[in-house]
């Protein structure tokens, strides 16, 4: 089979985004085949929008499983409006999860981490309610050093704990799917993507976003958590192209605006072992 045969169409050369996309589609199709019931965590942020988009790529324009939004009740109003609009436009089967009040959360955690841990508790009750075996989450290795240790298929034991010291081997696109009662698998289709890849893909595919990501009055959000624990960064990037240019010039960590990452050296790891994303 020669590529140079005249008159025969050659396949399009794949660039880095094509390769990331193909790999993520493969992972989503594995999850859909192997893990039922399955659901996708839709935080309404840029990464999870990319993930919904990739699911539609994998399944010919539809998302054949429910998406979950774990609602802390503290998101920005723009995010709730976005949720309503795109649940309809993308024909999503949306499941909402509530979070317990902060008073019920481990008081030994620093304040912002304690607030974030509400989301973990909300997620846990959704997983139990729907007896989920697979939860698709949009974390990336480049976000945070602890996440860099993750697997694409990451088993969670009883109590949803992440056993970071005893993770299964994962190679050659083979994913472990051990199963005992009370376990589920976190699936991470975006693990190999970097922040800049996400933005370039959003630009290429024209994926809609909450406009909080774009600068107004010299400030924009680089990462969106709850209103009370996320702060905007100084920026004049008000378009996709400007955001991409800004990131290419910057070396600041994306989660610099997320308070719980910086409260103590091990706060984030403690959150993750307990089931935070």
């Amino acid at each position, binding site marked *: 089979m020669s590529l140079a045969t005249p008159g025969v169409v050659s396949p399009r050369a794949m660039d880095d*985004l094509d390769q990331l996309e193909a790999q993520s589609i493969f992972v989503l199709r594995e999850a859909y085949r192997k893990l039922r019931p399955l659901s996708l965590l839709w935080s309404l942020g840029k990464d999870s929008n990319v993930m919904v988009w990739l699911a539609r790529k994998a399944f010919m324009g539809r998302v054949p499983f429910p998406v979950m939004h774990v609602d802390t009740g503290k998101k920005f109003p723009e995010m709730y409006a976005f949720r309503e609009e795109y649940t309809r436009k993308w024909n999503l089967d949306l499941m909402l999860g509530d979070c317990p009040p902060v008073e019920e959360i481990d008081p030994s955690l620093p304040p912002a981490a304690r607030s974030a841990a509400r989301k973990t508790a909300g997620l846990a009750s959704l997983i139990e309610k729907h007896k989920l075996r697979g939860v698709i989450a949009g974390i990336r290795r480049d976000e945070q050093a*602890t996440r860099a240790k993750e697997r694409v298929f990451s088993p969670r034991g009883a109590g949803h704990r992440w056993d970071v010291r005893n993770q299964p081997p994962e190679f050659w696109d083979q994913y472990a799917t051990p199963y005992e009662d009370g376990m589920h698998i976190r699936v991470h289709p975006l693990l190999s993507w970097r922040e800049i890849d996400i933005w370039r893909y959003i630009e290429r595919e024209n994926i809609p976003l909450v406009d909080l990501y774009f600068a107004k009055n010299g400030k924009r959000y680089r990462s969106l958590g709850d209103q009370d624990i996320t702060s905007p960064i100084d920026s004049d990037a008000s378009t996709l192209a400007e955001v991409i240019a800004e990131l290419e010039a910057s070396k600041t960590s994306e989660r610099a605006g997320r308070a719980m990452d910086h409260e103590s050296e091990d706060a984030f790891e403690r959150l993750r072992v307990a089931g935070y994303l």
Partner: protein
Amino acid sequence: MTTNDLPPSLRAAATPIVIVGHVDHGKSTLIGRLLYDTDSLQDGKLAQIVESSRKRGLTVEWSFLLDSLQIERDQGVTVDSTRIPFHLGGREFVIVDAPGHRQFLRNMITGAADAEAAVLVVDALEGAQEQTRRHAMLLRLIGIRHVIVLLNKSDLLDFDQERIAQAETDVRALLGRLEITVEAFVPASARDGDNIASRSERAPWYTGPTLVEALAAVPAPASRLALDFRMPVQDVYRFDDVRYVAGRIDRGVIRAGDRIMIGVQGQQATVAEICRWHAPETPVAGAGESIALRLEPDLVPDRGDLLFPVSGAGEPPLKTARIRTRLFWLRSEPLRVGESFTLRLSTAEHDVTVASIDAVVDLDDLTLAPGEEVPPDGFAEVTLVAAHAILFDPFAPGYSDGRGVLVDRFQRIVGGAPLLGEAELPEGTHAIHPTASRVTALQRRALQGHEGAVFWLTGLPGSGKSTIARLVEKDLVASGVRASVLDGDTLRAGLCADLGFSPEDRRENIRRAAHVARILAESGQVVIVALVSPLAEDRALASQIVGEGFHEIHVDASLALCETRDPKGLYAAARAGRIPDFTGVSAPYDAPAAPRLRIDATGSPESAAEALGSFITTRIA
């Protein structure tokens, strides 16, 4: 087409580089240094390192950058592999850090398996150690093609040309035995930065590349587009009345209109359409793309079926049930002959049994020796036998072909098994392999006072096989013998409920019964099988499956007598044409030519049972 041939507007994917080596030979330090020297750190990171080092009363420790988990810092070892992007000129790399600690081999494989190149870090003073050999072996087994050796801590040899040359000779000799070509050998000090990004002033005699130069010379991934088309089916969807055959192309190119074969059955179809969502419409797709196909006719392949070009168009995949593999073993208990696993090969899953351990690697001197078992974290050449022939292309470094992975019955990955090719069938054996029970036949015999065996009762319907078997079973158990009965109707009610009475289904029925009987007999049971089993050739199959301890018994009664008895009314129904393929009426019965025992079944079942009972007793003593 390689990445270098891409139009300038296309960005290449990052090149993954794995860093391996013995514990404390300086991998993490090297990575920290590399990131610092190439200015790849995020703004906050350097301050974090300085702060962490200060808190511990240390000068700057480059390795803190990677030891980002609290537990790792406490232990002082890197627990898991991690990936860090960095730039070199216009090219993007991803560094994979692999831990040196021995029991964490599986984490290393997780990181290293899709690397394009490896940096093997060797301590200049200590030279190659146990994990150096182990990691080098693994680089070979997972198929890393490009290996750079970094002789770290060369300052401890004062960057002395002669001593470094000696160290180089030793390491090259070791890797040569593993058929690994060293692309560059760099004397360096990661801590001080010598020959990492900048040339060392302490080794003016050295004219080779710095590490950064050596990395920049790593070739782009091999192209898979020019190879014959392969796509393992990942799933089949039906959305809005359209059937999609989904998968990722392993290699080659597929175009609308191409004729393809499907899996081991070899059904043929034409690619009617290559489907994507929200992508430019083009009737062609190449290696690496995740796509969906519409087939004409609208066949429904199974997950795992390999799609490949129809015969005549290129090389077909290999097809065999006996496979030679080169295995790396990740379970904490050793691997033994007779163990069964699921072999995952891309999206396919096959039941396999370890037929033989042909050679085990001795990690002290890297020689191959025969062995009974493969130790944890060990390497070996192993023959796997699948229940049915499977399709594959042999493993080749840099390609996705033949990447076998063994999974246990808890769905845990326990080993990697690159598939090398078809295994020769050893002389005088058939494709059945005993399980390696730790209880010997002798122990069982001592325990229960008799051996396990199979007594296979064949005869016309209505000859009394089941009745006789049940009577004998009762008598044997009463006298302390562990006996059980497998009878035709019971099997067909459950294990064989999916089978009919065609010659193929009868044969399958017998094959299953024989396997169950064998397992029971091996665990010490006396098994009485009561099956019409009309064909001599099918009973020969049963005899072959069971092996030693198989006794063919003919329960002999004439057709006329059986038809007169007709306890279930079956003969009448068959004569009336309501039961097709009924043995003796509309299907043949081959009476055994030389059974071990012929029971005259014209008399009472009790006297027949007595005859059989005494025969069995003499055979199991």
